[in-house]
């Protein structure tokens, strides 16, 4: 039997890109063909926004800085963008555990495809989904009175920062998915990680009103940093706590995203290679 090597290093990169595109496409087709998933995963953020705005809005309004222009929805939308970048990572975990339990990952791992493509494709398709959801949130927010106080560049910049953070975060969720591995417990595990970050943050209310010990956490945790960056970009520097600058918060948000990626992407890939369903 003659041995011919089929994998040359030169075309490894183009193979990887191709494989990522194939997996991303497959995941997106699944979303489009599962209308319930699409409908509920888009309705949920919208309902959340309406609820928070009309239930909390009146009470919180008094505590807001002038940069909110006297409207809670202006304060809320940037925070919700950060929060839903966080929540949509839950889909990454759920999608992976589903593929794991159906033996799909076994098949992928037995194929001569790029090792990183399954996770990269999964996180990319979830990135595209969250871009869709964040844009939808901006649109629905606009309908109920949200008005950016800066300019279009600020809004697009905010979208970019939110998506970069969401992408980094989906690697954390990929790690959780590959660790938990069980479709029934994954939802609980995801919320366990997400809720403290989402609510002990500056998303809904200014952090100054929280007890000192909690402020230690809330002021520095990534969701607050990203929320501040988004508020600065959408509402202007006046929306930030004293002493912070817009560019400083944006830089910090990117730094957090990079740090999260640097830790969790290799960890998730390591778990994926060892995963056995």
């Amino acid at each position, binding site marked *: 039997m003659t*041995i011919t090597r089929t*994998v040359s290093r030169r075309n490894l990169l183009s193979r990887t890109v191709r494989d990522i595109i194939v997996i991303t496409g497959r995941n997106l087709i699944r979303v489009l063909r599962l209308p319930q998933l699409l409908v509920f995963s888009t309705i949920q953020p919208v309902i959340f926004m309406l609820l928070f705005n009309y239930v909390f809005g009146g009470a919180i309004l008094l505590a807001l800085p002038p940069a909110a222009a006297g409207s809670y929805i202006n304060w809320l939308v940037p925070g919700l963008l950060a929060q839903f970048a966080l929540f949509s990572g839950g889909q990454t975990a759920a999608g992976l555990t589903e593929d794991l339990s159906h033996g799909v990952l076994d098949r992928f791992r037995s194929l001569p495809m790029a090792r990183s493509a399954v996770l990269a494709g999964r996180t990319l398709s979830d990135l595209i989904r969250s871009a869709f959801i964040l844009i939808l949130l901006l649109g629905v927010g606009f309908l109920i009175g949200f008005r950016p106080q800066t300019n279009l560049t600020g809004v697009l910049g905010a979208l970019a920062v939110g998506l970069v953070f969401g992408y980094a975060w989906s690697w954390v969720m990929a790690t959780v998915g590959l660790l938990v591995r069980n479709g029934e417990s994954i939802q609980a595990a995801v919320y366990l990680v997400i809720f403290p970050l989402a609510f002990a943050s500056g998303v809904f209310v200014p952090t100054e009103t929280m007890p000192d010990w909690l402020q230690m956490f809330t002021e520095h945790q990534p969701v607050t940093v990203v929320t501040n960056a988004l508020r600065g970009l959408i509402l202007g520097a006046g929306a930030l706590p004293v002493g912070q600058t817009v560019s400083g918060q944006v830089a910090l948000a990117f730094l957090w995203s990079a740090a999260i990626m640097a830790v969790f992407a290799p960890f998730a890939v390591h778990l994926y290679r060892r995963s056995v369903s």
Partner: protein
Amino acid sequence: MDKAIVQVEKVVKVFGHKVCALDGISLTIEPGIIYGLLGPNGAGKTTLIRVLATLLPPDAGTARVAGFDVRREPAEVRARIGLAGQFAAVDDFLTGRENVEMIGRLYGLARGVARQRAGEVLERIRLVEVADRPVKTYSGGMRRRLDLAASLVGRPQLLFLDEPTTGLDPASRMELWGLIKDLIATGTTALLTTQYLDEADRLADRIAVIDHGRLISEGTGEELKARVGGSLVEMSVPEADRARAIEVLRCLSAVPPSYDAQRRKVSLPSPNGSKTLMEALRLLANANIQPHDISLHKPTLDDVFLALTGRAAIAGDGPGTSSDVKEGG
């Protein structure tokens, strides 16, 4: 360079610190045949397939597929194998064609080639009519066939079939068996795991019986049966005559006749086949004993299994069965 497609040498795989799934197993598979791995649940069949498919690294020993070491050259191995499993890892929300094309692309085929190959494979596997329907509308048998099609699109030299018919209805099983037989005629080698003895008997050119992660016996089905011993004469006689029957038949074989109380049958090893049967009838007639029935019985793989593992095979009630029925709906 050996021309064996699979070479397993003293492979060990331990899960955790206690469970020894593979206990120094060695075997060699020549190309172009269907090789059956037969064993009860937990015998190590699936673990061996996972090691060979590069899904699990062996803890000790070496395993080679088409000459490539599964641990050191996994990419080369993956380019040459196809995996079809008992869980039918196909995507419910894609159509059959999309599923096969996607796998083709992931084997590294260009888009056009993948499309053309997918068409060919779907034709061969007789799924063309339903190829553009989402897989969630497929029956259990159709899903297995699609799974098989997906594993073939890369034209693998070695195909792993991990319990391909577990949980299928008899008609679907027969159909899948036919397809697998046809495939091998085209030169692919298949490594089949099964807990169905008839499946191993029908499909496999050679069979390895494994238990507790060890190879217990290996050979063609006929060889395995011969190793267990020749035929048996089985009869039921009136209860009053039983002791006397056993007495008169004692001279016919080295091993004395035995009585199986559960089945109420006297069985007699018959090294000389039908000659022993005729002799037994003559002796019984002389003793004026008339059996209710009497038959010459060739050993089945069931007997092989029982003799080799000391356990009856569990055909048809594996844990996979009930869940697969659900999945097939």
